[in-house]
């Protein structure tokens, strides 16, 4: 299969540049880690849907933006209809030194470095939750690359906080990110997200940064946007609550596996490894076996600095 074959009727016509006919004249600015991000070319209904989904993160139209995303029309006929029931939907991506191409359900998109990062998104969805989901699918990828460029990383993870510090819980699908988040929440913790969080370097120590991409828990802003990161933990479901230190190498392996989108990009391997190695060396890392008893929250808070 070639790039886009699974999603596009005419992969040969995939946009080679950020050009075409926008949906409308509307734009908005999102204040999300790595941004602000300006999203332009929107129809009124599209703007409304994004504002609803990213409620509280939209800034005034005149706000200066670090990254510009342009949205364009694409006809429905450009996309193949796929029955996604029963399978995990993954974007098709093609990587090169200066661009990343994405194809998915009713979306074609680009990230280009020329030399700063810019984004282009082509879709046939003009409004509503369908459009908002398409936008979020693209925005997750864009944010991952943007944050990598800023020396950080987006990670499939749960992020929990006691209001002062934060802990990063790693694991593949089914490892218990949502479950462990809920258990911590029940014990008084706040959850940044049970799906995607960002880590960014800061003077002194890395910080866990809130992202608006949540699974079942977290997401909308409530509280500070970031916290000092106290530890990285690799989750394992068990019948007891137990902590075991792991080596930086083991931590690095877990972090790399948890870095979506960019960990498949051969052009960014070096950058990703460098960033995550620095992270693995700068905070303690553990394997956390946890039970449904909820004792993990006490264990987390007891981890020494």
């Amino acid at each position, binding site marked *: 299969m070639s790039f886009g074959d699974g999603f596009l009727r005419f992969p040969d016509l995939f*946009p080679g540049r950020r050009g075409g*006919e926008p949906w409308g004249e509307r734009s908005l600015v999102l204040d999300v880690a790595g941004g602000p991000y300006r999203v332009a070319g929107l129809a009124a209904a599209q703007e409304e849907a994004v504002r609803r989904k990213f409620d509280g993160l939209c800034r005034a139209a005149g706000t200066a933006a670090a990254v510009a995303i342009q949205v364009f029309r694409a006809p429905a006929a450009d996309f193949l209809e796929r029955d996604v029931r029963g399978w995990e939907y993954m974007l098709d991506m093609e990587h090169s030194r200066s661009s990343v191409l994405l194809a998915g359900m009713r979306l074609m998109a680009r990230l280009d470095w020329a030399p700063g990062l810019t984004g282009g998104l082509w879709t046939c969805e003009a409004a509503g939750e369908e459009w908002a989901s398409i936008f979020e699918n693209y925005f997750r990828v864009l944010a991952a690359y943007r944050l990598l460029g800023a020396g950080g990383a987006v990670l499939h993870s749960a992020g929990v906080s006691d209001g002062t510090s934060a802990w990063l819980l790693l694991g593949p699908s089914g490892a218990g990110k949502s479950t462990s988040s809920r258990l911590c929440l029940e014990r008084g913790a706040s959850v940044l997200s049970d799906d995607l969080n960002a880590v960014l370097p800061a003077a002194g120590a890395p910080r866990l940064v809130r992202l608006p991409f949540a699974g079942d828990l977290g997401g909308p802003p409530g509280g500070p946007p970031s916290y000092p990161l106290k530890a990285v933990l690799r989750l394992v479901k068990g019948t007891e609550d137990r902590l075991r230190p792991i080596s930086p190498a083991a931590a690095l392996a877990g972090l790399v596996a948890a870095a979506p989108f960019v960990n498949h990009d051969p052009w960014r391997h070096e950058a990703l490894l460098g960033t995550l190695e620095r992270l693995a060396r700068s905070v303690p890392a553990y394997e956390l076996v946890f039970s449904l008893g909820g004792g993990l929250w006490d264990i987390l808070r007891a981890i020494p600095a």
Partner: protein
Amino acid sequence: MSLSRLISTAWRENLLFSVLVELTYRCNLDCFFCYNDLGLRGEPMQRDEYFRLFADLQEMEVLNLTLSGGEPLAHPDFLVLGARARQLGFVVRIKSNGHALRGELARRIRDEIDPFLIETSLHGATAATHDRQTRVPGSFDRLLANLAEMRRLGLRVKINSTLTAWNEGEIEGMFALADSLGIPLQVDPEVTPRDDGDREPLQVAPSREGVLRLFRLQFERGRAAAGAAAEVARGGDDGTMPAPVHKHCGAGSSGIAIDPYGNVYPCVQWRRPVGNLHRQSIREIWRRSAGLAEVRELTGHVKEMVDAQGSGSHLLNFCPGSAAAQAGSPLALYPAAEQRRELLEQVMAEEAGRPLLPVVR
């Protein structure tokens, strides 16, 4: 009766004959020197608006309809619009980069549109040079394969190229490549700014030596065929030179261009909007646009200005649209035109000094 006299009539009487429609600025390549104004905004033309436009153009006895872009194949209604144009009896030309012109799409174009000509673009004789321009790796190999397939399908194809600093050393190779494919190649020696005035494309303008090399090659090739001079001078839409008339060209008199937002221009090069199809029909614009009236008068002044340049003025290949873009006025003599005349005169002098028969020593 002659076609050139008929074209003169069209220019003189303001009879619309040729229309170029930029269907979309979406493109599947990313050529460095592309002239499209990607920042242009407006309400895209809808399918029924294009149908009305085509119907009006048919009633106005327009013969030539060129579908362009961006990449016209990327327009959602490209096949439908092309088929409608065929039904209405236009001579349909398609300006495509050729990247997607293969397989089912190529067959459908042949069967449903039956274009008179497909004009594709070649940017070098090697993958390195061509792909450098398109900025899509693999585009050169793809183009060559698609050209061969188009020929097998019986599609009529032509290759257009623009001489640049990047390909000026490969021009012989480009002609050899086109010859091997059995496809005519036309090379334009001039890089132009973008339609929004951005002069970045001029960074890859060819050198004097590159242009000289092209002209010498064209004369050399033309010696084998009639009309070498015609190959390097500008003709009408299909290359036909009109019989003498009081205007310099047919911009706004026998031809127009239309962008994806319905803006109407005197020609693809002269980006002075003279109306918009969302607000007026093409008939109304053609009859009543003050901008078009001004352009028609201007092309008369352009002819006076060009004629005043003396003998060899036709070698300027003067374009008022290029003049407006490069020098701020459709009447301004811009450097590229002056260089063109100078270099053509030089090559023609070289040709004149060439012995007609081989000298036996």
